[in-house]
């Protein structure tokens, strides 16, 4: 089993995953970062989204060994210790989610999108999140949370 080293949420992590192990399973099983969820394991639902070297990627479609040397941010790495980041706070204020299973993927995807498109409007946000599936909400509350975060960010 190959030895790999990568940075996850700012900390250096080493591991020896089987070559076939996905990045999602490595994060969840080897690093105990269970906030990254698996909703389909074929790259459609987006629940497993993480930020890898600045880009949102589906950790179910990547092998852990492909992430060797990379900088990975998961849902656990977005908030200051014990608190909520600005997007998470806006989503709380907006009642964005219900069961919470899709939530990490949406939060991570929207974080990556907003960092590149701080002035995005509703339609752009909808398109940017159209690769994430939520079964509970009908999406409006999620979109509202992202819009609120963007608005607060501009006012800051």
């Amino acid at each position, binding site marked *: 089993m190959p030895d790999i080293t990568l940075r996850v949420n700012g900390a250096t992590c080493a591991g020896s995953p*089987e070559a*076939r*192990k996905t990045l999602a399973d490595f994060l*969840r*099983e080897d690093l*105990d*970062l*269970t*906030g*990254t*969820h*698996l*909703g*389909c*394991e*074929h790259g*459609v*639902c987006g*629940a497993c989204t993480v930020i890898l070297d600045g880009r949102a990627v589906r950790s179910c479609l990547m092998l852990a060994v492909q992430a060797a040397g990379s900088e990975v941010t*998961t*849902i*656990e790495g*977005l*908030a200051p210790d014990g608190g*909520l980041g600005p997007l*998470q706070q806006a*989503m*709380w*204020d907006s*009642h964005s*989610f*219900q*069961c*919470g*299973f*899709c*939530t*990490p993927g949406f*939060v991570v995807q929207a974080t990556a999108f907003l960092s590149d498109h701080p002035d995005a409007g509703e339609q752009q*946000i*909808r*398109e940017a*999140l*159209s*690769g*994430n*599936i*939520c*079964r*509970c*909400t*009908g*999406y*409006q*509350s*999620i*979109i509202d949370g992202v819009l609120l975060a963007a608005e607060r960010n501009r006012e800051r």
Partner: protein
Amino acid sequence: MAEIVAERYTGASIKRSEDPRILTGAGRYVDDIKLPGMLHAAFVRSPLAHGNVLSVDVSAARALPGVVAVLTGADLEAMTVPGPDPLMALFGAAGPTPEFTLLATDKVRLMGDPVAVVIAESRYLAEDGCELVEVDYDDLPPVVTAAFALDPSSPPLFANLGDNIARPHSRNEFGDVGSTFANADRVIDFHIDVHRHQNVPMEGRGCVASWDADLAAMTVYAATQSVHITRTGVATRLGIEPDKVRVLAGDIGGSFGLKIGASREELAVAAASRHLGRPVKWVEDRGENLMVSGQAREESFDVRAAVSNDGDLAGLDVAVVVDTGAYPGMGMGAMVPDIMQAMLPGPYKLAALGFESTAVITNKATYVAYRGPWASETFVRERVLDLIAKDLGLDPVEIRLRNIAARTDPPASMITGRPLVGVTTVEALERVAQLVDFPAFRRRQAQARAQGRYLGVGVATFIEAAPGPRPEGPDGALGSESMRLRLTEDGIVVLFTGQMPHGQSHQTTLAQIAADEFGVPFEQVRVVVGDSDVVPFGLTGGSRSATMTGGVALHGARDLKAKVLDFAAYLMEARAQDLLISDGNVWVRGDPASAIAVSEVGRRAASGQFGADVDAALEVEATFDGGEGGWSGGTHCAIVEVDAETGLVKVERYVAVEDCGALINPAVVEGQIRGGIAQGIGAVLLEKSAYGEDGSFQSATFMDYLMPTTCDIPRIEIEHLETVPLDADVNFRGVGEGGMIVAPPTVVNAIEDALSPFGVRIYEQHLPPARILELIAAADSGQ
């Protein structure tokens, strides 16, 4: 100290206490459970829809390093107690009970039927093991359609039944069906189909079972709508005393009716854990979820409507055939016709109803409850009203207003029995008409048509018995709900509920109600769920929790407060009737300086300093029967644009006017409504559980089973009606299912309206682009 002004939480969109953990990845779902020595299970599944199992060779799989055990259907039969699905045992089934084993032994009955389970050190290795299991099958003719299942020549799936009938044909009549139809100006016939689609929670089914051989006790970490029903299932099928089974549940990633009881796979995992003396985890993958977890709907209706030339719908005569799939789990497929029959009249003054039903068994996934399981009655009724309106040249709002029962005192009753007390359908329809401005829409529609664009508007109404009006006699409409409440030594009001939330926000909403009633800040209330050793019996489902659990939280907090005040009266040397609790303090009325903290009362009670004459046990058990109950309901309206070239439908606007009584938390209520509507839009435009003619399942990925995403669901405008309080205290009503019940007819009605220039009439629910183009082409060619 100033006079204390209590904050009121009930009725406000209090932010959810579930969210901080969910938003940071700290939610604890069943797949996040990791126990020392835990093994992983994967199932060997049938590639055939119907076949005899000739042999199962597990030797190569057992020899694979990392594989700990391979258990066949025969192995599991020896380890478990035969019997029906636990939920079917609980509620009873309407028809004969098919006999089958936990995993397939002699026969497979659908594609994906589990034949063996491989237990290994990792899920990867367990799946490797599955590939090494050799099963020999002998094909049997698949029974894929209800029509074939009804044919006595179809091969019976279950040998003990002799045919494929899950519920024999029956017919009931309400009112004078014969003379209503004989005297009608016109009788119109339709055949309406509702297609198979499914729950698809983002988290599939799964469990971790952990057998403690020393204590002879089982712990199951489950994703379930009821820890107690799961416990009953595990205890019954494994032959363990129920008190030796503990079911724990944490966060649950949605369910919508799917995760009730203990599935065949979950029971097999529990049996494997006992056999091996080690914890075993199984979490289904999306392919398993789509293929075998359960599917819903697939009903066909022959409908006759007795109508006057003015548009009065006097009678309906409806015959339904329900395709219940392969294993009639929980009896839902056989039970649902009874609810359809009761609800078919809706809020309308139908004078006569004939209703006949049959449920059949086919080689497809089991028919399960899915958000508003009986919803097809609303689809049929609301579709029929529009079809009649078109024939008679009436407006869809007008025909509904004409036929809805007026709110009278005493109330009119549905022809099937229940009184329409407090139903606000007329108000909802009138409000929708105002919000949408139909004349202005018709002008815009005409202009658009002149440009070759096809806009349409659709409305539909529903009522839901959530809980339903209080029946005559001692019992409430939905039985009763229990709760235990305690004031801790830290001054926390703790609610122990059998509700098992999976997105419904009960840890927030129940705390709102109890905080107000007891008189403490919201943050001083905890809602404990998900431990069968600790919480009373309960089930989250059927839109019951708003009334039933909201109500027991209110009455329980009231009872606990009375008990706390009795004890505080002793402490404070005051009379209990002179004491108040607000903002977390107990004080003598008119004397704010007397205030002591509720936490101080709790601490003193826990100190053990009091004799037998002082009741310092600050705990109560409460039950609630739903009080006066009442109906939920509403009217929805959709405006769509259909692209006649591509068949694509865009939902441009969606308006919902709903009445779920008093709102506990408007943001939570609106989330339920929007989520249900999104599922309804998905059901019409995208989703279908598809089978080939050979019974092969053809939608086992999200590239085949299409889910609605951000660009498919519009902003949804919601207005609440709160017109008719019926109960002195509890007027919260269920709202979980309504969106999914009424959105499909709303959207289909709008699509038919958009396509009216082509003369299209729609008698089905699934309208993906290819089907829209077929309907246009068929209408064009005069078929």
